């Protein structure tokens, strides 16, 4: 068959359409993983956090987070005596390399690790104009980077400041709760490396998960409960000064 100009012009669009369907083919999902059987969350035990920055480093490495941006970070709070409404909060380089010694050891000092709260009624997914961010059936808030326009609505909508625009891809990025790991039966990178067990992945749909007993027997809070986001990152022993 001669490839005349006419034939080429007919073939090219046909090939383009065919290639689009090839690319759209779904990659193989993890076997034996059922979306409907999980509802992921995380437990953060503040009295156990030593601010070592292992979670921040591990997250950056596992997820190739660009330098200067954070999917998880650690804040150090300093509350002077009664000034609960005016805590001094710092997070040098996200706490990636730990924290310098405090100038003052008076008052109350503690660390608060932060990450996406994987809200059940998340404000960020509601504002997306194109359906590029969503809550998966197993309760993880993800960004479809192939569909995101980079309009930044979600970055503004997140009350916890957990989103940023990746400077390379120019699309929204955030904690995926290591979705590629938890669907394979692993824990998240941050929970894996946390040396004191201050962070623990939890599956609220698994009746055998120790999270249920923990939530029942401890004083647990979520961040900004008044915003009714359905946050699923639970903080144990959290001081009232934490924003």
């Amino acid at each position, binding site marked *: 068959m001669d490839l005349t100009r006419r034939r080429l012009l007919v073939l090219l669009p046909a090939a383009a359409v065919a290639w689009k369907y090839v690319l*759209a083919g*779904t990659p193989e999902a993890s076997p034996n993983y059922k979306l409907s059987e999980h509802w992921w969350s995380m437990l953060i035990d503040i009295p156990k956090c*030593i601010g070592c920055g292992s979670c921040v480093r591990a997250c950056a*490495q596992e997820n190739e987070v660009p330098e200067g941006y954070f999917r998880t970070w650690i804040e150090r709070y300093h509350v002077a005596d009664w000034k609960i409404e005016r805590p001094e909060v710092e997070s040098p380089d996200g706490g990636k390399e730990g924290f310098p010694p405090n100038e003052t050891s008076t008052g109350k*000092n503690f660390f608060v690790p932060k990450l996406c709260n994987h809200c059940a009624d998340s404000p960020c997914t509601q504002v997306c104009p194109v359906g590029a961010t969503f809550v998966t059936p197993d309760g993880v808030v993800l960004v479809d980077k192939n569909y995101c326009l980079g309009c930044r609505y979600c970055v503004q909508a997140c009350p916890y400041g957990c989103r940023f625009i990746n400077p390379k891809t120019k699309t929204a990025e955030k904690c995926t709760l290591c979705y*590629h790991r938890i669907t394979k039966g692993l824990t998240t990178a941050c929970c894996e*490396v946390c040396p004191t067990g201050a962070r623990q992945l939890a599956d609220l749909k698994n009746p055998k998960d120790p999270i249920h007993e923990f939530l029942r027997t401890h004083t647990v809070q979520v961040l900004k409960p008044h915003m009714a986001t359905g946050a699923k990152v639970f903080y144990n022993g959290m001081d009232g000064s934490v924003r």
Partner: protein
Amino acid sequence: MAHKKTNVFKDIEHLIRLAVVIVIAVVAFVVLRTAVIPRSFGQYGHYRGAAIAEATAHPVAFAGHDVCEACHSDVADQKKLGKHVVVACEACHGALARHADDPASVIPAKLDTTIVCARCHEANSAKPKGFRQVVAADHSGGIACDTCHLPHKPKIEVAKTEAGGKK
């Protein structure tokens, strides 16, 4: 009346033309829409269902301590004797899934204990009071921690006889 009726149908050609244009526009819209919207859109909700599977495709960097302990069971046994039993291997040694995949050619780097130990154990008033903390400069004066302590079983008694350290 009859005269009027023929008048009405006389101009029906215009309506047919308009209808044809509308039908073409609707068909074109539907065809374009199905071509442009990804096939998996709406599978689970107002998003591309295939994006979930794409998120699972990301490679793993941290193998997980179960994988480490499959080969290094001796280290795991040693850790069980000390407080570092709760610390996962890759918390100190770094992401080593590549080493687990190919142990022969990917060799983990030796750790500098003056840096690695200090990340957790350097004193800081924000750290929980029960957590072991030292001011490294006063405690060891810059000597590597593993001169005296065995990192996998840090309590000093055994290390004293094996490494001859003090303190």
